[in-house]
């Protein structure tokens, strides 16, 4: 038998930065709820085929525009009702979340990787080349991502693939800008100078000193970029520039339902709610992370 260690004197214990951030994050119930919600959406993204009761594109002509189950004329079999082609709305929302959120996450990761690489170069570099890049980025940053995406789609033609490419290209400058500023800020701090005086090379400084200090900030920026990506991809879908009508994408589902909004309000209310919930979850997590990061740095 081991006696429980007596805790007369609480030992000085400093959690690691990541753990500390997590502790701070955990304190806020709202942020935790956001995280749970996000996890649920991630489960939906991964297991959509198993969760959806029907094929999202199966058209049933005999049950067009069936109201959701809570309506008196609805059926429990079609929980969210059906759309104008008799497709089960629940399955479409599930698949739609998969397409919208899944693609957005993918795009953010890709553009973060590219942006990080280029941004690190821009931040560590000096002289004319990096100055030109900075000016170029500053001017790009002024134009909203969605507008850039629209222009790129206009060049490439409509379609989900072009849309994805457009949003990636539109997100990259953002990440370059953020990374560059962060690298610049860190480079001026004393610990980097100390590392440099120790003879560390640029690459080593970047990977050993700067990147670990940026990681959380990048995650926060990633969540903001993710919400922007979701908004952009569904907006392009809504403007019929993105996913074609057969692909269940939340934005294009909204524009499908637009003509029949008066007859079947649920067909626009439900996909919209799905987008809203997704964004709320992401923004909650992002906000929670940001404030816990700020708390950590204050104490």
């Amino acid at each position, binding site marked *: 038998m081991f006696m429980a260690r007596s805790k007369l004197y609480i030992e000085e214990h400093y959690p690691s930065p990541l753990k500390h951030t997590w502790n701070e994050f955990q304190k806020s119930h709202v942020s935790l709820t956001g995280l749970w919600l996000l996890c649920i959406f991630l489960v939906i993204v991964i297991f959509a085929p198993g969760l959806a009761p029907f094929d999202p594109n199966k058209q049933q002509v005999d049950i067009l525009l069936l109201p959701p189950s809570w309506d008196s004329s609805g059926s429990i079999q079609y929980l969210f009702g059906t759309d104008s082609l008799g497709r089960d709305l629940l399955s479409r929302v599930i698949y739609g979340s998969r397409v919208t959120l899944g693609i957005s996450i993918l795009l953010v990761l890709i553009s973060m990787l590219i942006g990080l690489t280029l941004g690190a170069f821009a931040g560590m570099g000096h002289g004319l080349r990096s100055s030109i890049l900075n000016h170029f980025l500053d001017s790009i940053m002024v134009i909203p991502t*969605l*507008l850039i995406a629209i222009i790129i789609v206009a060049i490439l033609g*409509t379609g989900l693939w072009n849309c994805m490419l457009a949003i990636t290209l539109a997100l990259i400058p953002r990440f370059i800008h953020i990374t560059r500023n962060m690298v610049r800020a860190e480079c001026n701090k004393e610990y980097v100078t100390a590392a440099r005086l120790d003879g560390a090379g640029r690459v080593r400084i970047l990977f050993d000193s700067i990147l670990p200090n940026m990681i959380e900030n990048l995650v926060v920026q990633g969540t903001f970029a993710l919400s922007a990506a979701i908004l952009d991809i569904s907006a392009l879908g809504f403007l019929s520039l993105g996913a074609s009508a057969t692909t269940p994408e939340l934005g294009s589902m909204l524009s499908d339902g637009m003509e029949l909004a008066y007859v079947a309000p649920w067909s626009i209310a439900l996909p919209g709610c799905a987008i809203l919930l997704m964004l709320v979850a992401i923004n909650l997590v992002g906000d929670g992370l940001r404030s816990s990061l700020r708390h950590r740095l204050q104490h």
Partner: protein
Amino acid sequence: MMSYLLRRLNLLVITAFIVTVASFALVYLFPGDPLINLTGIVPANSEAYAQLQQEYAFDKNLFMQYVHYIQEIYQGNWGLSISSHNSVLDEILLFLPATLELSVYALVLSTVIGIPLGFWAGLRYQRPVDYGILSASLLGYSLPVFWLGLILILFFSLNLGWLPMSGRISLLYDIPHYSGFILLDILHSGLAESQAAMQDAVNHLILPTLSITIVTSSIVIRITRRSVTEVMESDYIKAATARGLSRGQILWRHGLRNTLLPILPQLVLQFTALLTNAMIVEVIFSWPGIGNWLLQAIYQQDFPAIRGGMLAVSAVVIIFTLSMDVLLRLINPLKDRDVHGTI
């Protein structure tokens, strides 16, 4: 200050250069014949084509083509729209003011709503009022603007029938085009029924403005609130308290300026997001603005129009942000802080 202005001017020139190069590049990037993409004129025969080529310096190298392109842009010849055969610039000048009108009202309204609410929340930091405002703004910030517009239409136009769901003004009124801002035009027209027309135009404006305002003002609230909480925790506010100033005096003399100065540039940046939102909202409300027009151009593959629209929108954004940047710099007493701060 002078060096600052020069830097900004430099940035303006570079940005203008990049945007014009990009728009010129679009001529080649768009599918189809570059010359047709540029002019919007489909020549009838090869002779006409050759003439057109010469006219637009297309028989010379790319650089000369670009120089010529800049000249044409400067002279107001932005090409013809393929679908309507009108001058692209004329169409833009007709549609852009409608968008600007919507954006300006939404911007003013967002600031007027967002900043006081942000202040209120920031001053009641971590109390019920703060939590209430914060959650509302989080919700508003997460709303996709196109869905919000649809829901507003569904509720206020279709269910309640209070407000019109599309357009800028009822077809009953024929308002001559003057400034492009409908409310100003009505005032200027001096029509007999201008009172009723005004009412009608305002009714048409409410829903689109509201949907943009809800989204933008929640961002404004968040930015303001954060700045307020930071300033109220600062040493100089504590020192002012210790000097025996009242809360009102502290807030008015020291809090307001310190809170607003750092966030104004961020608010200016929101304008671009607001403009994008306005362009999406136009589609939902069939608002005859540049967003709607640009999208029609995309659907119809009207390349001269897309190019022109992009150029116009970018120009608006760049001119607005840069001029606001300079303006803010002028009123900021900390403008030369950076110069003195670094050793």
